[in-house]
């Protein structure tokens, strides 16, 4: 996809909406909001990995069931 200057997306965003979106993203409020979400993602990454960790005590439990 060529890297073109987008002024509108037909049927999705008008040119004034595009301008407003771009303005918000480069505003101080936008930058801070995105940074906050990245910090949150960092914390969540640790949680995701932690949840999937295997408790060492489970490794020794025999799976033995037989009716």
């Amino acid at each position, binding site marked *: *996809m060529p*890297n073109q200057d*987008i002024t509108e*997306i*037909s*049927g*999705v*965003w008008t040119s004034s*909406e*595009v301008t*407003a*979106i*771009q303005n*918000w*993203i*480069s505003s101080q409020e*936008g930058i801070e*909001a*995105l940074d*906050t*979400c*990245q910090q*949150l*993602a*960092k914390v*969540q*990454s640790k*949680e*995701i*990995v932690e*949840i*999937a*960790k*295997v*408790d060492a005590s*489970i*490794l*020794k*439990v*025999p*799976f*033995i*069931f*037989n*009716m």
Partner: protein
Amino acid sequence: MPYKVLRYSIENLKKCFIEQATAHEEVVSSKQHLACFENYFSHIGVKTIIVEKDYVNREFLEDYSSYYVRSFKDYKRHCVRLHFFKIEISEEDFSLILEGTPKGICAKNLQENYQGFMVLKPLPITIIGKTCISTYEEDNKRHFPTIRKYHANLYGINLSVESLAYQEQDSIVAACASSSIWSAFHRTAILFQHSLPSPVEITKWATRHFPFANRHFPNKGLSAEQMAIAIREIGLEPLLSGVNTYDTLKATVYAYIRGKIPIVFGFDLWDVNNNSSTTPARNFGAHAITITGFNETNIISNKFETVDNLTLRSSRIDKFYTHDDQMGPFSKIEFNDFEVWNHNKGSIKCLDMTWKDINGNKGNIKAGPQIIIIPLYHKIRIPFTSVLTSINFFNNLFIPLIGRIPNFQLFEWDIFLSDISDFKSDILNDSKLESKRKKEILLTKLPKFIWRAIGRIKNENCLEFVFDATDIDQGSFFILTVNYNTNVYLQYNLLLKKYDSKNMEDFSAKSMIESLQ
């Protein structure tokens, strides 16, 4: 006569079991498997059983030569193989086919209506040997990515069925753990090119490094550690993952099972008869089964674990199909939010099983997830969690925009392992991809195993990120972007155009962003 043609009925199947088993009729009739087969065979429409007597089964022969042959009692070494068909076949029809003068039903009809086979071992009770039965019909909901083709030759008639081999534990050379690994190996042997060990070999490998443990044969079970050793012995790497919660269990199983890898699932068994905060549930052991497929619904959650706004396709799963050696092939375990209460462990979110309790009632036996063991080719180095965290970094960037801008919504992520051939076939057959880009992707050199993360909106693929599953877990393992929907691509291009990703901590997420700028 070396064969018998029977009209299918559960009574006739029971008779076959009783004739083969040496235990008392009542013991054989009480096997839970019969109820499972009755339900399953009526679903797949079995009408006829052809009994092939004196059948030599490689798997049983190896178990026999390793153990049973040295018994004082004279155990037989030949098995019986039952073939199932979804058309009515008479003794005369089959006889005429063998004489080469078919009238009405011919060999082609047998091939077209073949529903699989079941080997019955000459043992007292645990007689169900290698069983390959066709699956429930696959549709948009039921998926069986782990099945493969099995061939059978019935007196010169070539038959085939798409399935995954199943057998019950004999509690002598193999317990549930060995049986579940044996089923998983039946798929990984094709995927990763390794030999197919019998249950007795799996048990021997698993226990080799535990000389001080209790006796290995008769085998009463394996620990997760021992199962991991058996997997390593075949040349694969065991990936062990904790799955105490629904979300992690669904997402991890989905990610690997879509890559055609069957998964060994270990769990606690709970009997919840009269369970309440004052009457704790009774734990009666740990069990291992093989997850072979899944069912998905239209219900979707926009949350993964503690992560809000991360929507995964895997959260649509409401049940797994499993090879449970105590129940049968493709038996269901369901996510019904049932919480078991126990003094030691508190509240445990369990899955519903179709087992009957000691009183013969269904609905009281629950599975408390513990661990999954995934047999992986050693070059699949990047784990699912690494891809998930990169996707979450990317997804999080757009959370502040929800509700702030019109016609924009976050993706539902479809994350799974794939090999290069399946990926390129999907690309070739996709009608929405721009032709130039399609050709470019098809001609791109890619690693054998990849992770695919497809961003979907309303069940339509919009944007895909492809990752190198064979890379090392440092730096970026992102490879390329596939754009299925131009408007969505333009939206992301516009939103990310001025974003400065230099401080992004996740290198793969950083590369994903740069691919869209």
